[in-house]
Structures are given as structure tokens and as C-alpha cells.
């Protein structure tokens, strides 16, 4: 193997061809080295990947929701211009230009879907859950939303509550701003974040006081 002793280019440039087998080998070697040198724990990589695949998104959305619950002016900005409001919290950026927040109220319950494929407001929700991508959910939630919410998700809504189904059209990415649950007046913003679930921002669940995401 040639060694690179000089030049501006990466010191590893030219040492290997771009061959996936070599890339796999170098990666494992580097991870082993960094673990030996104490820069990584044995589980660090797996943990980071898992966090990004499962947790990061909903955590961001939860921050947005909790802020909206505690700051009326922010909530208005969120409903008027979600990308800008999210960006105030450092969330989103270029990938979230088409986010739209839809607010649950005493009289309106919102739920989101993409009937054509499975577009998803991932800058604030992360990875779409399996049910969201299923053809069954995508077709049934628009036809009989109240029944699907009740039968599949155990969510019972009063008869006088209007259920609005928002289908991702074009580039718009809806997400639900759920209602702040009763009995949470004493909680601060950080505590409120814990109550916001991914499913409540899809609209198939509602946040409940005393129920944290960790559970």
C-alpha cells in the first residue's frame, strides 16, 4: 500500500481504490482504533445511529409544540409560518420550507396522511412509523377517519368534534399541533416536551398529562 507523504490532498487519497470491500474494512479498522484511543465507547456508534433513526425527529417537534403551548405569540407565528417559527428554535432550515402546522382545538381534530406515497414532515417528526406508510392507513384514514382512529388507535373523539384529514399535496408537509392536555398548568416547557408524542403530531393520538414519551 502506498503512503501519502506530501501534498494538499487527504492523506488517505490514493491509498485505496473506491471499492466497497475496502471501505468496509477501513471503517471497522477506524472504529476499532477510536475505541482503543478512548474517543468512542463500544456502543457509541450504535447509540448515535439509533437516536437518529428513531428519536431525533419527534424530539424536535416536541420542542416546537411545547413552545407553542407556553408562548401564544410563538404559536401564532407557527400557525402562520411554520418554517420560520421552527427555525427560531434552530429546527428545520432548507428542508422544511413547506411545513404547515395544523392546530387541534376543542372543535377540530386534525390527522395527517400522504395518500399517494408516504410523504412525511420529517424535519420535525423524524422517521415515519410503519403504520403511516401502510396502504391500509393511507386509504382508510381518508375514507373513515373516525373509525380508524377509534379501532386502530383507541382514540375516541366526541361527535361534535370535526375530524380533518390533511393529505400531503405537492410539497406541503403538514404536522399536527396537538392540544395541551388538561392538568398541566404547573408544568414548565421542558416538562411539557416530555408529553408530546410522535403519534400526537400525526394526529392518531393525543398527549396525556402524566404520560411521558419515555414510557
Amino acid at each position: 500500500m502506498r503512503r501519502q507523504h506530501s501534498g494538499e490532498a487527504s492523506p488517505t487519497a490514493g491509498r485505496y481504490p473506491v471499492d466497497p470491500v475496502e471501505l468496509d474494512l477501513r471503517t471497522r479498522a477506524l472504529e476499532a482504533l477510536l475505541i482503543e484511543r478512548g474517543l468512542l465507547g463500544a456502543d457509541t456508534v450504535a447509540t448515535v445511529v439509533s437516536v437518529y433513526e428513531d428519536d431525533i425527529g419527534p424530539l424536535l417537534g416536541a420542542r416546537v409544540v411545547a413552545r407553542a403551548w407556553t408562548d401564544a405569540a410563538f404559536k401564532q407565528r407557527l400557525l402562520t409560518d411554520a418554517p420560520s417559527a421552527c427555525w427560531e428554535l434552530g429546527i428545520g432550515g432548507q428542508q422544511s420550507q413547506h411545513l404547515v402546522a395544523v392546530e387541534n382545538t376543542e372543535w377540530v381534530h386534525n390527522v395527517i396522511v400522504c395518500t399517494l406515497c408516504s410523504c412525511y414532515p420529517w424535519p420535525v417528526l423524524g422517521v415515519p412509523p410503519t403504520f403511516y406508510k401502510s396502504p391500509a392507513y393511507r386509504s382508510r384514514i381518508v375514507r373513515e377517519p373516525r373509525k380508524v382512529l377509534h379501532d386502530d388507535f383507541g382514540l375516541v373523539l366526541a361527535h361534535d368534534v370535526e375530524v380533518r384529514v390533511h393529505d400531503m399535496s405537492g410539497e406541503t408537509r403538514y404536522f399536527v399541533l396537538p392540544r395541551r392536555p388538561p392538568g398541566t398548568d404547573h408544568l414548565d416547557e421542558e416538562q411539557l416536551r416530555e408529553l408530546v408524542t410522535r403519534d400526537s403530531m400525526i394526529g392518531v393520538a393525543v398527549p396525556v398529562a402524566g404520560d411521558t414519551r419515555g414510557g
Partner: protein
Amino acid sequence: MAADAGFDNVLPEAVRPPRRNGELIFEAPWQSTVFGMVVALNQSGHLDWASFGERSAAPLPDRVAGATVDVGEVTARYAAWLDAVEAELVASGVVTVDDLHDVALRQRRHDRHGRV
């Protein structure tokens, strides 16, 4: 719990982690390992996104000239990440070029022994 590293907003578009409908795409285990290592190193203060972004976006003449295998976009993206993280670690003095060479050799020997 780790906060979002924010790389999507700092890295040039050409080198951001590939996504499909927002989901990170890994076509092989080594790619998720590269991703995890880079994010972990950033979170522990050993890697700066701006510098890493520049390195991973800069074409490497040697590698481009020598690249004969059509590996696809996702593999190419993470190959660039791997090159860049190695270069960052060497530049910051965390590892040396010899270290990288030696551990790769060791890994190769280890892999060969595993094959009976």
C-alpha cells in the same frame, strides 16, 4: 440524550447524509458506522462540521482518477465521509497516517484468519 447535531444545515448539500422521505439511507453496515462515528466525534468536540464539510465536498483527484468501481450515490457519499473523517483526525493529530495504515492491515489479517 443527544441533541440534533444539525449537520443538515451546516454541510453542503452534496455531502449531506442521503435520505429518502427523511429517513437516513444506509446500503451497508459500514455506512451507518461511518455516520455514527462522525456524528459522535462532532458531539464530543473532535470534529468540526464546517471543516469536515469542506473536506468531504472537495474532490480528491487521486481517488477520482483511480475510481474504477461504480459504487452508487450512497456508497460514494459515505466513502467521501470516510475519507474526510480520516483526514480530519490526521489533521487534528488524533491519529497518524501510519496508525490508519496499521489498523487497516491488522483488520485485514483479522478478517483473513476468520475465513477458514
